[in-house]
C-alpha cells in the first residue's frame, strides 16, 4: 500500500543506525568481505552469504548533494531519477521494467555524500544487472521531454517528504542554520524554487563530471564470491573509461558559531508542540581515535531507548514529557550531527521542557555514565552487528556506505571491538565537546495559535 519510493533513504538520517550494528560484551568482528580494484580504478567489495540464491548489487558513487554547484540545489537527487531514463540500448523506463521482468527489485538513493543505485535479484541475473548498470554509468541519453515530467515528480516528492510536514519544514531550516555555509545546510532534495528551474544542461554537466568507474564502489552481497565475480566485473565494468582528472571533492568550511541559535515554526497542522536541538559533531570520517564510537555510546545512554537518561527523567520520573530521546548521525564524510528531542506533557511549557533537557545533559556532563549504563549501551549497539548479519542487504549497506563515507574495511570489521573498548573517559570527553549550547540550533514546533 505504500508508494514505492525511487529511493528509500533520501537523507541519511539512517547513517548512524546502519553502522550501529554490532556485538555484545564478547565483541565479535564483522565478517570480512573480499575486495579488489579494477584497472580503471573501480573498487569492488564482495560479501558472501549462500543461504538464498539471491544477490544484492549496489553501485555507490562518491558524489552527492554536497557537491552541487550553488544555485543548483537538488541536481544530485534529480539526476538520480534521470538515471532511470534511457541509453542507446535501453529505452526510457525500461531499466526498472527489465529488472522487474527478471524477478528483481531496483531503486536508488541520494545523500549529501553519495548516490547509490541498487538491485536485488536472483543470482543467475547478476550479469544482466551489471551490464545495464555499467551501460548507464557512461552512456545515458537524456531527452528534453524526459526532463519536465520527472521534475514534476520530484516536486511532488518534496511536497510529500517535507512541505506536507511541519516537522520536516522546521528540521530543514534548523540544518540551514547549523550549517550556514557548508553544503550540509542545503536539503538533499533541494530548495523548491531551485528544483523548479533544474534543466537538462545542468544534469548532463553533473553526470559527465562525476559518474565514472574511478568514482564508484561496487558492492555485491549474497550467493557469490570474489572468484566468481571478478571475471564478470572485469569484463563489464572494467572496460569503462575512467574520468581523467576527476575533481577532488572540496567543500567550504563554516565560520565559527557566534552563540546559541533558535528558530520557531508555527503551523495550523501542529496539534502537539515539540522541541529539538541539533549540535555539530564528529563523524567516523572526521574523528581522531574513537571519538565517533564514544559519541554513539554517549547518545545511546542519553536518549537511545526507554531506559535512557532523557526518557526516564522527563517522561517517567518528572512526567513533563510524553516523548524524549536523542541520536547521532555519525556517518557524514564532512562531519556528524547529534540531536535531542522531546514533546511536552499537557500543561508543560516548551521552556520548562527545555530546562528539563538541559538538566539531564548537565548532570551527564558532570557525573558521566554509570558502569551499568556504559556496558548496556555498548552491548546494545554491539548486539545489532550480529543481527545485521541476518540480512545480505543490511551488510551491503554497511560496507558501501561506510566506505563511501571515508572508512576502511578494517574500520568496519573491527567496529564492534572498538565500541567495546570505549571508556568512560572517552564518553565524557566527546560529550563535553559535543554538547556546547553555543554550537547548537534549537527548534520549537508550535500550533498556529497557542491554545488556552
Amino acid at each position, binding site marked *: 500500500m505504500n*508508494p*514505492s519510493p525511487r529511493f528509500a533513504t533520501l537523507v541519511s538520517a539512517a547513517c548512524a543506525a546502519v553502522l550501529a550494528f554490532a556485538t555484545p560484551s564478547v565483541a565479535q568482528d564483522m565478517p570480512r568481505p573480499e575486495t579488489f580494484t579494477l584497472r580503471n580504478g573501480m573498487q569492488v567489495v564482495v560479501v558472501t552469504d549462500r543461504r*538464498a540464491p539471491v544477490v544484492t548489487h549496489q553501485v555507490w558513487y562518491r558524489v552527492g548533494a554536497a557537491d552541487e554547484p550553488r544555485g543548483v540545489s537538488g541536481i544530485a537527487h534529480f539526476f538520480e531519477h534521470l538515471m532511470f531514463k534511457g541509453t542507446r540500448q535501453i529505452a526510457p*523506463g525500461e531499466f526498472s521494467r527489465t529488472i522487474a521482468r527478471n524477478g528483481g527489485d531496483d531503486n536508488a538513493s541520494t545523500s549529501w555524500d553519495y548516490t547509490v543505485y541498487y538491485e536485488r535479484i536472483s543470482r543467475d541475473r547478476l550479469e544482466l544487472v551489471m551490464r545495464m548498470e555499467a551501460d548507464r554509468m557512461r552512456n545515458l541519453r537524456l531527452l528534453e521531454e524526459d526532463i519536465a515530467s520527472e521534475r514534476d515528480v520530484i516536486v*511532488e516528492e518534496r511536497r510529500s517528504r517535507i512541505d506536507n510536514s511541519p516537522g520536516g519544514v522546521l528540521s530543514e531550516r534548523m540544518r540551514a542554520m547549523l550549517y550556514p555555509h557548508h553544503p550540509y545546510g542545503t536539503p538533499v532534495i533541494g530548495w523548491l524554487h531551485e528544483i523548479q528551474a533544474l534543466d537538462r544542461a545542468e544534469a548532463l554537466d553533473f553526470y559527465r563530471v562525476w559518474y565514472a568507474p574511478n568514482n564508484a564502489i561496487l558492492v555485491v552481497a549474497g550467493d557469490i564470491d570474489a572468484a566468481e565475480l571478478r571475471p564478470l566485473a572485469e569484463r563489464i565494468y572494467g572496460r569503462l573509461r575512467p574520468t581523467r582528472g576527476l575533481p577532488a571533492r572540496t567543500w567550504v568550511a563554516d565560520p565559527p558559531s557566534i552563540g546559541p541559535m533558535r528558530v520557531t515554526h508555527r503551523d*495550523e497542522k501542529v496539534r502537539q508542540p515539540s522541541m529539538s536541538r541539533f549540535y555539530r559533531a564528529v563523524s567516523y570520517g572526521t574523528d581522531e581515535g574513537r571519538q565517533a564510537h564514544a559519541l554513539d555510546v554517549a547518545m545511546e545512554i542519553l536518549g537511545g531507548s526507554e*531506559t535512557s537518561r532523557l526518557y526516564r527523567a522527563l517522561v517517567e520520573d518528572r512526567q513533563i514529557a*510524553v516523548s524524549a530521546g536523542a541520536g547521532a548521525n555519525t556517518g557524514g564524510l564532512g562531519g556528524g550531527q547529534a540531536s535531542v528531542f522531546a514533546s511536552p506533557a499537557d500543561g508543560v511549557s516548551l521552556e520548562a521542557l527545555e530546562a528539563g533537557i538541559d538538566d539531564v545533559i548537565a548532570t551527564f556532563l558532570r557525573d558521566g555514565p554509570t558502569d551499568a549504563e556504559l556496558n548496556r549501551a555498548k552491548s546494545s549497539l554491539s548486539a545489532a552487528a550480529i543481527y545485521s548479519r541476518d540480512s545480505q542487504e543490511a551488510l551491503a549497506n554497511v560496507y558501501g556506505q561506510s566506505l563511501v563515507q571515508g572508512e576502511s574495511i578494517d574500520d568496519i570489521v573491527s567496529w564492534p571491538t572498538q565500541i567495546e573498548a570505549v571508556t568512560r573517559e572517552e564518553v565524557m570527553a566527546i560529550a563535553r565537546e559535543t554538547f556546547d549550547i553555543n554550537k547548537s540550533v534549537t527548534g520549537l514546533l508550535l500550533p498556529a495559535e497557542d491554545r488556552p
Partner: protein
Amino acid sequence: MKAALIAIAAFFALITQAFAQVPVQAIRSPGGIDAWLVSDSTVPMIVLHAYWQGGSATEPSSNVGITGVMTDMLTEGAGDLDANAFKERLQDLNMSLGFSSGWDGVGMSLVTLTENRDAAFEMARVALMQPRFDAAPLERIKRQITIGLRTRESNAGYIANLALDQALIPDHPYARRINAENVAALTRPALLARRAALFTRSGLMLTIVGDIDAETAGRLIDSTFGSLPLTRPASEPPLAEIRPATPLIVRALPQPQSLVLFAAPGIQDEDPDWTALVVANYIIGGGGFSSRLMDQVREQRGLVYGISTGPSVRDYSAFIRGSAQTENGDVRQAIEVIRAELARFHAEGATQAEVDDAITYLTGSFALDLDSNSKIAGVVHGYHTGGRDIDYINGRNDRIRAVTRDDVNRVARRLFDPNAFTFVVVGQPEGLEPAAAR
C-alpha cells in the same frame, strides 16, 4: 538496442531456478503444543512469532482500544521486575521482545541470540504469564494516548482511513477508534480481564526460525506457553457489511498536497480468484515502477511521486485499496486518470505480455522475501496464521504460474469496476465537489 534485447531475453529461461525450497516442519512439543519450525544455523539467532486469534475487533464497546494498551503493557514490567528493570534486562540479554495487537488477533515476537536463548524465552514467559500492569506505566501510556488523540486530528492517513471505514463499514468494530472516554476506562482490572480472555492455548499459532532444533524448540515452547489455559477465545465480530461506494469524500487539511485513498470491496484469500488477484493487482497498481497506474500517473504526467494498490484482507472484511499524493491543484486530474485506468482494466483486462511479465516478477522475486531468518519467519508465520497448509510456501510459485490471462481478466471484471471505488481526498483540493454526505 537489438543486441541488448537479445541478451536480456536469453535470461528468461533460467528464472525458475532462483527459488530454493523452505524446509518448514510441523512439530509438537512434549506438552502437546503445535508449531512450525525452520531450522537454520547460519546466523546464531532465533526468531519466534506467536499469534492468538481475537484482536481489537472483539473488544466490548465500553473498552475500545484496550487490546493495544494491554499488549503494550506486557513489556512494562512483569514478575519481580518493574518497567525499568524489565527493559534493562531485555537490553542486557540483547534481545527484542514485543507484543502487538491487530483487528483480528494479538501477537508476540521474540528475537534472541542463540547464546541467550533460554533466558530470552524465560523473559517471554514472565511477560505473558505475570504482567504487572503497574499504575505508573499505565498512567504514562494513557498520557501518550491522549496526546495521540489530538495529533491524529491533523494526520492525513488517519483522517482518510477513518472516512473510508465510516463510509463503507460504519456499523462494524473495524470502523471504531479509541476516544477520550475509552482512555478513561483503561484500568488495571480491565487489562487483566482482557489478558485472560485473549491468551489461551487454543488457537495459539507458533512459528520458529533460526538456530534451534526441534527438541530444544519443543522444550522451550512448553516452558513458555505450557501454563496458558486451554479455553477458547470468546465472541467473534460479525462479517462486515460493505455499503455502496461513495464516489468522492473530501476532508479539509491545510497542506500543499492532498492524500488520495481509494477502495472497493475485495475478496478473502481463500477465494478461488485470490492468486489471480495477486497477478491482476501487480499489473494495475502493485508492480512498483512497472504498474499501469505508476506509468500513467507518475511517468507520463508527473502528477505523483508514488501510487500503489493492494488487496487488504482482514478476517471479517476484504478490500482493494490504493493511495497516492498529489498537489492540491492536480487532484481532480489525478483522480480522472486513476478512474480511467481502472475503467480500462475493468473493460479490457490485461495483455498476455503483461500477465507474463507479472508472473515472471512475482515468481522470481519471491526468493528476495526469503533471504534472511527474519524474512522467512515473517512470511512463514503469515501463511501459518492465514490458515494455509504447511507446504503452501513451496507451492506458491506454481500457483502463480498457473494463472492465465482469462483468470486476470475475470478478476478485473469482478473487482476493478471504477464505480465500485470510493475516493477519499484529504488536503485542500481545488475544484472538487464532494458527493452529498450519506
